[in-house]
């Protein structure tokens, strides 16, 4: 941590490529610590700022968005609680999507390259962002990560955010759409418990529907709850394990990528 301003600089963010080198994400951080030697206190005054607290993140996000737009890269930000099947879902659909267009993945987790290793095994470019103590990805982390990826024009980039239904909702990464995933082993009231996330989402994927016979989960109720929070939500029901419902979601995605 910088001891003059107390900021943690890169926040301990580390970029990793499976089998590759480790990089610290500190390129964007500017330090300017001038020392002033004035010994008399003067009067106080108010300075109007009217500045969005998330300004810095939002500017980075727009910068990313412009880059993606120029190269026609369709970007999805995958959000969910830990264990709802984000990585499994990607593992399942990427092999088929790769037949149609290039795919790349950015993985976000606090620690390990486990998820990136799984995606790497599919033969797609992937980079892992380890946020350390951080609970979400932000636009500057994505900005660093995307420079390390060999992104192709007219391609799909999937960003798998840190498993967390609260914090990542606030941070625009420059994506085209936010995809929230819930699984039937969670509660059907999840959209009401975490409304900020569902309100921000464009697409909701209900995963693990193969387990419906074994759990108390009301699909219609869950969908209704999600729609109450976000009226224009696209809704898909899938099982990454059995493959049920994946064709519908895949078809929808292929259309979006080719039209973007």
């Amino acid at each position, binding site marked *: 941590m910088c001891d003059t301003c107390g900021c943690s600089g890169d926040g301990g963010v580390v970029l990793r490529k499976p089998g590759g080198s480790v990089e610290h994400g500190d390129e964007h951080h500017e330090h300017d610590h001038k020392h002033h030697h*004035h010994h008399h206190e003067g009067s106080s005054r108010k300075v109007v700022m009217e*500045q969005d607290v*998330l300004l810095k993140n939002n500017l980075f996000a727009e910068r990313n968005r412009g880059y993606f737009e120029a190269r026609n890269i369709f970007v999805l930000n995958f959000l969910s609680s830990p264990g709802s099947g984000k990585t499994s879902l990607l593992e399942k659909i990427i092999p088929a999507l790769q037949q149609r267009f290039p795919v790349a993945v950015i993985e976000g987790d606090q620690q390990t390259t486990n998820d990136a290793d799984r995606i790497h095994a599919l033969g797609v470019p992937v980079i892992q962002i380890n946020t350390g103590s951080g609970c979400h990805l932000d636009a500057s982390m994505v900005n660093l990560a995307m420079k390390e990826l060999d992104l192709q024009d007219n391609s799909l980039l999937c960003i798998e955010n840190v498993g967390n239904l609260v914090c990542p909702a606030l941070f625009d990464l420059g994506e085209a759409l936010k995809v929230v995933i819930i699984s039937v082993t969670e509660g059907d009231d999840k959209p009401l418990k975490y409304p900020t996330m569902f309100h921000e989402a464009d697409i909701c994927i209900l995963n693990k529907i193969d387990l419906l016979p074994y759990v108390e989960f009301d699909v219609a109720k869950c969908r209704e709850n999600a729609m109450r929070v976000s009226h224009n939500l696209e809704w898909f029901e899938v099982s990454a394990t059995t493959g049920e419902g994946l064709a519908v979601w895949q078809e929808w995605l292929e259309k979006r990528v080719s039209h973007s």
Partner: protein
Amino acid sequence: MHEMSIALSIVEAIVAKAREEGAAKVSGVDLLIGKLAGIEPESLKFCFAAAAKGTLAEHALITVEEPEGVGECGECGKRFPVNFYYAECPQCRSLRIKIISGEEFLIQSITIEEKGE
């Protein structure tokens, strides 16, 4: 705990502004945090104290204005207070509600102590 990273970005922004203004220190920060912004003001204040340590903004007093959530019905146009994103129009029962206030998250102003010569 996104409040910590947010506190750090607030400190970064206000310290930069204070330097620009030639301030000796920042004694106050006025924030606008809408009730639907997804930020806990108490948690943010707690984090701010840690984030501001050793900076021009150390010991700055944080004041938070919290605008209420206001929704506007997409069907009948009625405006009414909302606490959540899943509000229902009290007039026509529509669920097509647009949030028109309550999502604000701004640094409004800072109070700086000027240097004497």
